[in-house]
């Protein structure tokens, strides 16, 4: 059993206990996308508003384990104000960081706080907790594209 300190890093516990961007956005102009993990029951709802190709606002809500909710909170901070294209890249990078070959340290650093979640890799059945919000975000952006 890998040490729990890899999983429950301080920054993660902080985001879990003090979630950022918590709330809802009016739809439209925002889109709302729910996500669930059928096994553990984790739930997230992602609201994104896209203006001129940029994620101008984001709000999130959810119920679930610390990893799923911290990841959701951290994600909301990481994407706010970023161009949609860049956010889509971030989704791919994040998933690669969680499930791909051992992530290269340099890359990881660039993800800032998100890098704290690499500790989850040592707990394979928690990876889906960390990824849930990012998958939901991807679907939210697709929906936003469709509406545009």
């Amino acid at each position, binding site marked *: *059993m890998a*040490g*729990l300190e890899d*999983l*429950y890093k301080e920054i993660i*516990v902080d985001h*879990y*206990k003090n979630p950022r961007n918590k709330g809802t956005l009016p739809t439209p102009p925002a889109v709302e996308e729910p996500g669930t993990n059928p*096994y*553990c*029951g*984790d*739930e997230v709802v992602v609201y994104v508003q896209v203006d001129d190709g940029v994620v101008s606002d984001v709000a999130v809500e959810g*119920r*679930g*384990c*610390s*990893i799923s909710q911290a990841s959701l909170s951290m994600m909301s901070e990481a994407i706010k104000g970023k161009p949609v294209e860049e956010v889509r890249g971030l989704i791919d990078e994040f998933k690669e960081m969680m499930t791909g070959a051992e992530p290269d340290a340099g890359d990881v650093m660039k993800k800032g706080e998100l890098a704290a979640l690499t500790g989850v890799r040592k*707990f394979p059945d*928690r990876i889906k*907790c960390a990824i849930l919000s990012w998958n939901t975000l991807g679907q939210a952006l697709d929906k936003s594209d469709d509406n545009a």
Partner: protein
Amino acid sequence: MALDVAAIKADFPVLARLVDGQPIHYMDSAASSQKPTAVIDAMENYYRNGYASVNRGAYQLAREATQAVDAARTAVARFIGAPHAHEVIFTKNATESMNLFAQAWGRANLGAGDVIVLTEMEHHANIVPWQMVAAEKGSEIRWIPITESGELDLTDLDRILDGAKVVSVSAMSNVLGTINPVRRIADAAHAAGAVVAADGSQYVPHLPTDVVELGVDVFVFTGHKMLGPTGVGVLWGTTELLDAMPPFLGGGDMILTVTKEGFTTNELPHKFEAGTPNIAEIIGLGAAVEYLEGLGMEAIREHEVSLTAYGLRALKEAYGDDIRIHGPSEPANRGGIFSVEYKDVHPHDLGQILDSHNVYVRAGHHCAKPLLQTMGIQASARASVYVYNDESDIDAFVAALAGADDIFGF
């Protein structure tokens, strides 16, 4: 006669395993139990020394295998007080058993507007099959509600049963541990003209079972929770009901004749056992039943009541209002299942933390989402005990919960 748990532990090879150099506390028997050497050996012996398929082989090994399956069927019938061994139908798990009944009986007997009665504390295995038939046939599902303390609320029973064609209830809840008054419900349901099924998945492993005394027409349970192997379950039904019911799976062994024009069904139990049976698993279940009989189901129940009392007390003493334990507070009315909420720690995190102390519990919805919704919770962390658990396991569980404080700083 109290159980000699130290001796019992020695019968279960897994329990000798060390993880990270430390002993393990297996407290997930409500999900699936460990297996004693007697069960593992019975299956191994079959594979190593006498493997053959059953029923139709005119040679030594096939005869032996057929006799072994017959003996296991007789043992299971005896174990649950079934009047006839041919009423014991082997399936792959309780889920298949309940589907067999809900689909085969339901398609033949349910119609538009007919009423199916379940309870709010059912496992998905006793919900989804009924939702499937109900959708197909346009039938209605009614739910017996639960009280705050996690017991069935029978105040309105007569109204709920009015016009019911079938009633299917859990004999013991896998989340709350609640032991339900099956007999009382069965009698009322029969008086209302309904057929009665019970889900004994959590009951049979832990209490002396007598299907006749329970007063039901159908009873399902699963092998892997009662020291048996994976891949075997049981459907018991009265001869009358099973004879009248159409078959579920079609194929070899369940037929009397097949022509291009159609088929006729074989006698019980074969009518409901299509294809090559799960022979090794049936043999393993027979061995599990004999092992349980050796310990004595009365003694097992006594052991678990006392462990439950100990656990409920220990949790409250250690954590007071910081812990919430779901289900009845009286050990005599429940099984050894501790579904807990600890402070604000999410059950999934709690499971992880307990795991790091080698305390193995289950965190999640326990396949009872409607129940959890009724209770207003998303998940719970559930520890459960069985014949091989003792107070030291409970102590480890209680102590490990505090590990959450270090991490979440509550």
